[in-house]
């Protein structure tokens, strides 16, 4: 489920990301990642009961309150907090559950897959975007990309 092809296709196909646990504090990883993805053309929907607005976008207390379709639910929460978020992701018809670096929950992942969602775990959306669509190899990161195509 986490093959390079799958991750590349997810980031190419889906453009609306609800970021659960997005912080308004600019030097937190969630803020980094969301700001980066916004700058690269993705629609960011912040989900955090503690804020009215983050990155100029209206912030919602939970996934269920979001009035528009969501493609990717990106989770910046501890692994043990994942199951109810996955339940909400299934309920709102999201296409992908994406758990960030160090976030993993195999049971919740299985539930999401059974409901027809794709699942990515223990990966950062920003790093994966940089890996496949430019930038990150200037920082010496091993992208695992080998091709003779431009």
């Amino acid at each position, binding site marked *: 489920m986490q093959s390079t092809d799958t991750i590349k296709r997810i980031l190419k196909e889906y453009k609306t990301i609800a970021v659960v646990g997005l912080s308004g504090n*600019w*030097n937190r990883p969630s803020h980094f990642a969301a*700001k*980066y993805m916004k*700058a690269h053309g993705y629609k960011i929907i912040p989900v955090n009961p503690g804020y009215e607005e983050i990155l100029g976008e209206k912030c919602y207390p939970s996934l269920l309150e979001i009035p528009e379709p969501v493609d990717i639910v990106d989770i910046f929460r501890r692994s043990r907090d994942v199951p109810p978020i996955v339940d909400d992701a299934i309920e709102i018809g999201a296409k992908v559950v994406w758990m960030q670096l160090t976030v993993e929950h195999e049971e919740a992942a299985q539930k999401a897959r059974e409901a027809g969602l794709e699942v990515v775990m223990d990966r*950062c959306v920003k790093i994966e975007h940089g890996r496949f669509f430019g*930038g990150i190899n200037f920082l*010496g990161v091993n992208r695992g990309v*080998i091709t003779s195509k431009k």
Partner: protein
Amino acid sequence: MSDRKFGFDTQCIHAGQSPDPNTGSRAVPIHQTTAYVFDSADHAASLFNLEAFGNIYTRIMNPTSGVFEERMAALEGGTAALALGSGMAAQMTSILTIMQTGHELVSSSTLYGGTYTQFDVNLREMGINVTFVDPNDPENFRKAITDKTRALYAETVSNPLGNVLDIEAVAKVAQEAGIPLIIDNTFATPYLCRPIEHGANIVVNSATKFICGHGTSIGGVLVDGGNFPWDNGKFPCMTEPSKGYHGIKFYETFGNFGYAIRARVEILRTHGQALSPFNSFLFTQGLETLNLRMDRHCSSALEIAKFLNDHPAVEWVNFAGLPDSPYHELSKKYMPKGAGSIFTFGVKGGIEAGRTLINSVELFSHLVNVGDAKSLIAHPASTTHRQLNEEEQMSAGVTPETVRISVGLETLEDLIWDLDQALAKSQKAKA
């Protein structure tokens, strides 16, 4: 297709670079530039904040060096790499990234002389205490570890003693102590040995040697194995907000390549030991034939070692590739494709005969480098290990009659001819 696990030879040639999207250039473009134009004031700020990936200034990153770095990370089996101005800079950076005043390093005593001095003098001056141990018994590392120890350090094949480290045993000691194992893989290169696969956490290489392969450029590289849990409480520099980088937590933000990023933005950025993009280009080109060159280096070295072993003017040959070497079994385990091409031998007649030998060679070059296409010869006691006292020289495996050679890629028979005629002269001088 892109999920195919490509082979080592393919990675030597392709990892880190696909054709340039703007120009179609197939070869690696040399980005000989100091700085990079920003899109806007906000873009510039984002880059400096590490919020966006991109180029700022060549002291910190460069697209040509980026190709070299990614290729090295791929070949060593790591998550990321950082190119540096020399092998010495690479090992110093590998240590400074996780150690500060008051910390301790436990290192193998059998090291390149320059490394020994760097640890024994420079690290101590910074308040980082170093304990040197005989690496042949991995338990020696364990016995020297204290609650202040933050890393173990050793060479895959040591310079010039040629002893092969039992990487897995030492990695286990490091793992049990909750500290990383740093390996200098210069003499083996990732073609002969991939220390990360054996449990090492950080690998450094002097790129000057086999990676360059042609004796043209000084450089180094460190590789992040991506396999160390930096949040075990011993490394607040990886887990607490960074003073030097506005509160970033490196491990949390960059995960399994956080070490390489901290090395880049908190050590290289402020210490400045950057590699020239042109040297990165030459190293990248060197890597494209690393596999082929290493095979030839190894086969010629083994033949020459056998020749010397049978030569009446030779007292002893110390090469892990020979079956009677005490390191032969370890060499077969960790370097099954060959034991490298650098080894030592002793000429009958001691230091004087050794000097005559070095003065009499025609094809071997007398200089202090290794891993060149050209065959090289040196006398460690008077050159690479000169700053060490006699006891330290002995512990590094350097005796007065020791001659070190690095076997190159010339016609094997010519190399044997050269050593044979020089050995004959060395014995005449003695008589």
